[in-house]
Each structure stands twice: as C-alpha cells, then as structure tokens.
C-alpha cells in the first residue's frame, strides 16, 4: 500500500508557566491508504494538537506534512481541508440551524472535487450508509441524538469525497453500543471504500478494532 499522508520531522511546543513545553519533537510517520489508525496516548501528550496539524487546522513550528507527496502548506490549508480530508469531532460540530441533509450538502458545495450525480440523492445515500434514514436527515440536527449527530458528522466528513478521515475522540460522548456502531462505520469505510481513517482516542475498545495502533508519547509516534 502506498503512503497517503507523510509527517516529516514535525516540531510543536508552547510556553506554559514560563517554561517551553515540547509537544512534538521531530515527529515523523507515514500513514498508508485504506488503513484504520488509532492514535493513543496519555492526556496532554499532544494527540489533539497532532490531529489539528494533520487536519490542517493548525500549523507546526517546523517540519512538513505531505498529502500524496504534496506539502499541504503549499497546497493551502483551506484547500486541503475542503478537498482532501474530512474531520469528525467529539462534539459533532454540526451547523445547528441546518438539517442533517443540509450539513452534508454544505460540505458537498464547498469541495472542488467532482461529486457524481445528484448531490441531494448522494447526500441521502451517504446518510443511509451511516444509518440515518431520510426522515431523520431532514430534521434539524439539534433534534437528533448524539449518536445520530455523530453519524451525520461522519457522513459530512465523507461528503467532500476526500480519502482521509480524521476523528478526534469520536465516541467520547456516546454510549458503548453507539460507540461500536461508529467504529463499525469507520472499519467499513477503510475496508470497503479504501478510506484512510485516523482516530485519536482514549478508548482501548476503539483502538482494538483498528488496523494499526500508534502511541504518541514524548513527542514522537511509535507503533504498538
């Protein structure tokens, strides 16, 4: 399998109480296509920071992030977020005055990637794939349960037709049954649709179901 995302000598730190705290130290790692990764690590180890840098939401102090060999800084972070990746957050981060369907359509409208066929039909299909029926898709997202909102968030991450999905503690607010269902969706996306899934999590249950488990500790990543 070829490398989809390459991290090269990433460094990141911040000043805390007058002392500089190094979060990432010359961190390098290659993520392969069609693989479901989980990143584990103790609290404060920098998991969310690393995910933010990989998802183009934040910038490293030094080092490079390459997507399919292209530096994402050169590509433009906004362009990268819009066309190459999808992000799923712990608290879903959906637009509350839109319905589930409209949240998906928003991502579809923004991407420069070609969306095959009718956008609305495709959005319904994506939602159906993550277990949201039409009647629920047409409701305002605030009228849906946490699990349903997270499914919509996953569908939205797929709507841009990117090959890479990041998820930051996606099951943190969900019960164990729903957690299993969400993990099942991620696995399906990796196995059946060839998506690369990178999930930051505390949960051993989640990590057990991933293809590769990585530990972030001391500012570097190592396979478990």
């Amino acid at each position, binding site marked *: 399998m070829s490398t989809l995302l390459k991290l090269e000598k990433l460094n990141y730190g911040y000043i805390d109480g007058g002392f500089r705290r190094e979060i990432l130290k010359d961190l390098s790692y290659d993520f392969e296509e069609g693989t479901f990764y989980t990143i584990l690590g103790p609290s404060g180890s920098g998991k*969310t920071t690393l995910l*933010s840098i990989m998802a183009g*939401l934040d910038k490293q102090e030094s080092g490079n992030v390459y997507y399919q060999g292209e530096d994402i800084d050169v590509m433009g972070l*906004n362009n990268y977020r*819009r066309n190459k990746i999808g992000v799923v957050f712990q608290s879903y*981060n959906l*637009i509350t005055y839109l319905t589930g369907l409209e949240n998906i359509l928003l*991502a579809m*409208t923004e*991407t420069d990637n070609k969306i095959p066929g009718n956008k609305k039909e495709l959005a319904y299909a994506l939602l159906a794939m993550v277990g949201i029926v039409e009647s629920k898709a047409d409701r305002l997202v605030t009228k849906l349960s946490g699990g349903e909102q997270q499914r919509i968030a996953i569908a939205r991450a797929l709507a841009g037709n990117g090959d890479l999905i990041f998820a930051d503690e996606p099951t943190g607010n969900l019960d164990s049954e729903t957690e299993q269902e969400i993990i099942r969706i991620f696995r399906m996306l990796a196995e059946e649709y060839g998506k690369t899934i990178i999930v930051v999590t505390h949960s051993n249950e989640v990590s057990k179901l991933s293809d590769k488990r990585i530990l972030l500790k001391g500012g570097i990543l190592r396979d478990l």
Partner: protein
Amino acid sequence: MNAFQRAYRYITRKPTKSMLLMITFFLIGNLVILGLGISQAADNAKILTRQQMRAAVSYEVDYEAYWRYTESLTDEDEINKAYQNYPRTSAETALKLTEDNRVKAFNYMTNTIAYSKDFENVPLGNEENRGNSTYIDENGNEQIYRDPNIMIYATMFPNMIEIAEGTFTITEGSFISQNDIDQGRNVVIITKELADQNNLHVGDTITVSTIGPYEVDMYREMGFTEEDFSWELEISGIYNTLNEVDPNSQEFQWMPPYQSPKNIVVVPMTAYSEVMSSFAEKQFRYYQSQNPEMTDDELENWTSGYTEPSRVVYLLNDPMDVEDFIADHEGDLSPYTKLNANNETFKKLARPLDTLSFFANIVVWIVIINAIVIITLVTALTLKTREYEIGVMLSIGVSKIKVVLQLFLELILIALIGFTLAVGSGSLLAGKVGDMVLDYQTTSDAQYEDNSDNGYYWSGDANYFTEVSQDELLSQYHVSVSPKLIGEIYLLGSAVVLIAIVIPSFMIMRLNPKQILLEQN
C-alpha cells in the same frame, strides 16, 4: 448549500434574532424615509416651481453692492470719484453672453417714457379715478399736468424675448429687422390697440415728443427747436401683446398711461440713440455755455445713457440651467454688476422648504450614523455567539470570505424586509410630519417677517421674472415615496449593511478554527 441558502435558513430558523434585527431596520427605514421623503419633496417643490418659472437672467448693475461700497468710503474725493465712475454693464460682456448655447432669446435694450404728439394713447381705464394734476406756468396760469403716455422700447437685436415667447405677435407688417437696426431707421412697431385707437396702419407715421408740454417753453428759451424734441417714426409693424394690467391691483388706480402694455412702442436702438444723444449733446452744449468750466470730456456722461442698453435680459431654454448659467459667467462680470435671476426672492420664498430640507437631511445623517453603529454592534455581538458555527464552517474548508458573505446576505435580506415594510409606514409618517413642520415653519415666518416684496405687478417696465407666491411654491410640496426614493432607501440600506459588516469581518478574519473548536470540545 451556498451562502445565500445558508443565510436564508439562518434567518428563517432563528426567527427571534431575525425579527429583532428586522424591527431595527424597520425603525431605521422609517426615519430615513421620513428624512429623505421630506427633503426630496422640498427639493421637488423647488424644482417644479423653478421649471414653471421663466428662465430669465438679467445682466444689471448691482446697485446694492455699489451703495454699500460708497457708504464705506470716507474720503470726499473718493466719494466724488465713485459717483463719477458709476458702474455700468459692459456691452462686450452682454454680447458675449448671448453666444452661450443655453440662451434662447435676449433683450438688449433701453426704454424711456415719451409723449404722443399726433395720436392718442390707449386709455388704461383709471382716468376718472386718477383725475388731473395741475401746475402754474410762467405766466401764473393754472395748467393741467400731462403724464407721459408712451413707453419706448429701443432694441439692439430683433430676437427679443417677447417675440421668442410669443408675448408679442405681429398682426400686420413686420417686427424691427436687423437691417432697420443697422441702418438706424426711424421705424416703429405699435400695439394693435394703439393702431385701432388712432386708425393707424403700416406705412403711416407717428410723432412722439421726448419732453412734456410744460417743458417746451423752457427748452425753446434754451435754443431748442421743435425738431430737437420731436421724433417722427414710420410704422413698420403692428403687434398684439398678451401683457395686461391687473385692474384689481393696488397700483392700478394711480398708474400713468405709459404703464399700459398697450402703449408700448418698439424702435431700433440705433435710431433711438441718435435722436436722444443729439438731444443730450445739445443740452450739454447749452449748460457748457452757461458754465464755461465744463469740458468736452464730460459729454460722454451726458450721452452714454442713450447709447448703452439699460437692461440686458437673457431667456434660457431650460429654467433648470439658470443657476449654472450664472455660475459659469459670474467670473466674466465687471465689478458691481451682476447676473440676476430673481433668486433672492425665490430663495426667500423657498426658505421654509430649505429649512425643512436642511433638518430632514440632518435627521437622515444622524439616523445613518446611528444605524451603522447599532448594526455593527448587533452584528459583532451576534458574531460572538456564532463563533462555534464559523469555526465549524472554517474546519470543513468554507473560506472566510464566504462566511462574511453569508453574514452580509443575512443582514441584507433582513434589511430588505425591514425597509420594504418601512416604505409603507414611512411614507405616511413623512407626509404627516412634513406637513406639520412645514405649517409650523410658514406660520413662524409669516409672524416675524415682512413679505411685502414677494408680489409682482406690471409696472410698465417689463418684469421678465415669473410671478410666484409662497403659496404657489408650497402647494408643490407633496411628500410621496417615489420609485427613486425607494431605490435610494435600498441603496442606503445596502451601504449601511456594507459598512456595518466591516468590523465584524475583521473579527472573522482573525478567527482560528482550531482555537474555536478546541474551546468547544
């Protein structure tokens, strides 16, 4: 799901916020319509009145300014010098102005009163009321005083305003021609009434005297002969005049016959100058013989009044060009001369409207500035509660420009609704408030000001400025919401929203999606 669709959904799904903002725009819209409506109605009333007024501009000596100048002098010699060098309109300037393509016709003429010798004037109809004045002659006999009864218009150009406007229409023969003027021919055109009164026709002659019967003996003693003050003129045309005197006017009962428009005769100015200048020169020679210290240099002062026009009036094609015409030529004028479009009177009449318009414009500006501040604050405060939503949009790749665009569209859509509702209520409000303020303003003016010079009447000398009263001017004042005004409201509303969005836009540009989402998570 583009920015417009998102904006529409935000408005419809956050009805309370939208409603509050809409009410703000509605109130702002009402005040702006109130201000603009009143201001436009005042301006329109002035424009409509101006359009109905004759587009006449008079080139004349600014007596008031020159009087102020002489009053300011203290040195005796300077005062004498000022009176000897009385300001005059320049023939060169007057002719240059005729070349302006806005000029439709012009009167370059002088006028004088005279006495009919071998014909009767047209009676005014007030003769019985006026009665006769008497004087005692040199022999101690009581004589009846005879008023001048003919008004002579001496024109330098055939393209007179009265002809161009159709006030004078030739019924027989022809008007004074350029050839008559160039040749200095002793021809005259007279009114139809004057011709009928005396059974006169084209080709007949009339004789006028430039001095009154009571002066004849005096001039004879001075060495003048009958020929010196008698002027024989051949009738080249008979015209009909639309000018009438107002028999109900206060002045009518005392009006001398020469003030009747029926007693106006028109002659070439060159012929008039010849006759009058030679008469003036003879007078000068007589007084010079009595006062040997008088030099020939002073002769010009005696004759110039007859060789230069006393009045130059231009009639423009469009009344709306009057202000520009004056502004364009003011720089060409010699000191203490002016171009007068009767603006002072018009301005005085229009003062209540100007005051109304002035305050209405102030209200508009205050409202606009307040609106910008209020909308900026409301948007900035709303933005704080929408940071999360913006962070989400940025995280999925929506550009900051599109976020600002959505915000702008939300405001503009709400503003459109608010202003549309305000168009209805604002026009009613503007009508009522505008009438109230105008009533108060005109009542105040009437209480404290003397408007006695607002009216015009026929005084023998043609008044080329249209008679207009304040009531006529104010009757043109109607507050209505015209399509132009509606357009302006929407344009202004868009500008307010555009300016109000600037600060919030900077706030959005500074937002960092990671920071927002981390805080939320």
